[in-house]
């Protein structure tokens, strides 16, 4: 009994030993600690926070407005978007599930009540509505859903005891097992692939799920465009640039939404493969539209400068680099741009 306690005290004493050498200060090597040091060293090299940004934050603070920071605004926007998306999804699912019965409803209504007069549920009704009322001759395709949806509606609308008595003796149609819609299956597969890719950082597995998606739903799947974008991201994570470029080449990309990111990626990959003219077209497209001063524009501008320089258009490259420095003075390529034009 004493021995484990003594060992515990020894461990505690070891753990209190001061550490003076940093892994991040060690030279590169093969051991675990050297590897950890190399990783930590690269993560430690964070560029200083630009003075311009500090001044902007100071101005925001000075304004004394009780405005929400941008992150909160962003969160609220996401929550609102989620709410809308959830509502839309719910409505879509309802539409898919209830579609046949709603279409069949006019054929059913006359059986239990006159269609001309709107019937309201009487306030005096205490007992729950009677058993479900079914149409004598339901359409075969809508049998199951009609059972689920029509009857409660009719009962709710105040079907009389007599009408129930006449209908209830009818044999219910044989129940068929409900099958999940193709869209739901596609969504599940795609969500799984995204989870593998983003959460588990496993692009190989994500790709396998996307392959399964393609095998099951082909190129006509409702979510094929989303699957394609996810596939491109997975391929890039795997370093399979050729395949990613192959897919990107087949896309008709615009400068809207995620298309911009795809477009700049395609341009860079094309440039990487020496297809500079094609790359230049993409960069031009990105920069000709009313390009916002974001990271895509930044990459496009620097990428175009590189392409132009490689194609011998020194003046064009210089103009792009000067424009780059004017628009993104603290950008990630600012040092290279300054060095290139000798500023």
């Amino acid at each position, binding site marked *: 009994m004493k021995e484990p306690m003594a060992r515990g005290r020894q461990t505690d004493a070891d*753990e209190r030993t001061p*550490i003076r050498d940093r892994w991040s200060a060690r030279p590169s090597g093969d051991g675990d600690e050297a590897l950890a040091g190399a990783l930590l060293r690269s*993560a430690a090299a964070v560029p200083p*926070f630009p003075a311009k*940004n500090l001044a*902007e*934050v100071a101005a*925001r603070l000075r304004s004394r407005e009780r405005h929400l920071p*941008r992150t909160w605004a962003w969160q609220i926007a996401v929550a609102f978007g989620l709410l809308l998306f959830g509502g839309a999804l719910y409505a879509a699912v309802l539409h898919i599930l209830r579609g046949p019965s709603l279409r069949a409803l006019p054929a059913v209504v006359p059986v239990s009540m006159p269609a001309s007069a709107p019937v309201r549920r009487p306030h005096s009704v205490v007992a729950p509505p009677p058993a479900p009322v079914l149409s004598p001759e339901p359409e075969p395709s809508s049998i199951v859903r009609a059972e689920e949806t029509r009857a409660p509606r009719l009962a709710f609308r105040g079907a009389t005891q007599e009408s129930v008595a006449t209908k209830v003796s009818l044999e219910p149609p044989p129940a068929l097992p409900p099958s999940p819609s193709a869209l739901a299956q596609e969504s599940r597969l795609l969500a799984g692939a995204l989870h593998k890719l983003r959460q588990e950082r496993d692009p190989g597995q994500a790709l396998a799920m996307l392959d399964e998606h393609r095998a099951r739903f082909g190129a006509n799947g409702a979510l094929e465009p989303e699957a394609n974008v996810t596939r491109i991201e997975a391929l890039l994570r795997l370093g399979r640039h050729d395949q990613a470029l192959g897919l990107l080449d087949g896309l008709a990309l615009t400068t809207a939404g995620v298309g911009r990111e795809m477009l700049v990626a395609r341009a860079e990959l094309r440039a990487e493969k020496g297809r500079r003219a094609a790359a230049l077209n993409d960069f031009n497209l990105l920069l000709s539209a009313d390009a916002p001063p974001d990271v895509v524009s930044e990459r496009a501008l620097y990428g175009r400068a590189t392409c132009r320089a490689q194609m011998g258009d020194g003046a064009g490259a210089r103009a792009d680099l000067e424009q780059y420095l004017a628009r993104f003075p603290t950008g990630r390529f600012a040092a290279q741009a300054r060095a290139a034009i000798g500023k």
Partner: protein
Amino acid sequence: MTLVRSDATPVIESRSGVPDLEALYRAHAPTVARWAAKLAGPLADVDDLVHEIFLVVRRRLPEFRGDAQVTTWLYRITERVAQESRRRDRFRRWFSRARHLEIERTMAPPHLTPVDEFERRQSSETVYRILDRLPGKYRNVLILFELEELSGEEIATLTGLKLATVWVHLHRARARFIAEMKRDSGRRT
């Protein structure tokens, strides 16, 4: 480099005896920004973090009595705000902004992006992926020691921990970091 040293900057007090926000911001904002960036990780928007931190500072400034060093007080606020930010980021990864950042990081090929910058980003993502699996108390001490290059004594001052506790946390953080790093590389191969 260290915040502890920057604490030597005098904090100008207003007439009411409360430290002046402007002076506090001028003296400490760059350090707070650096801490925020390192504690919150590469997905964080540092502008917003600094803004949030100093909104908290402004709100709580009248309560600051000088019992702790200004830097210790600021660090604790930064730590809490950064922790909140990391929680948000987990959620955010699923949505467009994270998608945008991740695609941007993933796609930039090395010949256009400087190789070192590309590798730095990749390594930084790996480091924070591993760090995020460590308990907060180990994670932050390791960040302060390895990334912020503070000494044990400085970390103790900043976090309010006993020096012995700092060393214990650091030993355990290192062991966990190595274990998680091996697990991470095992998963990738």
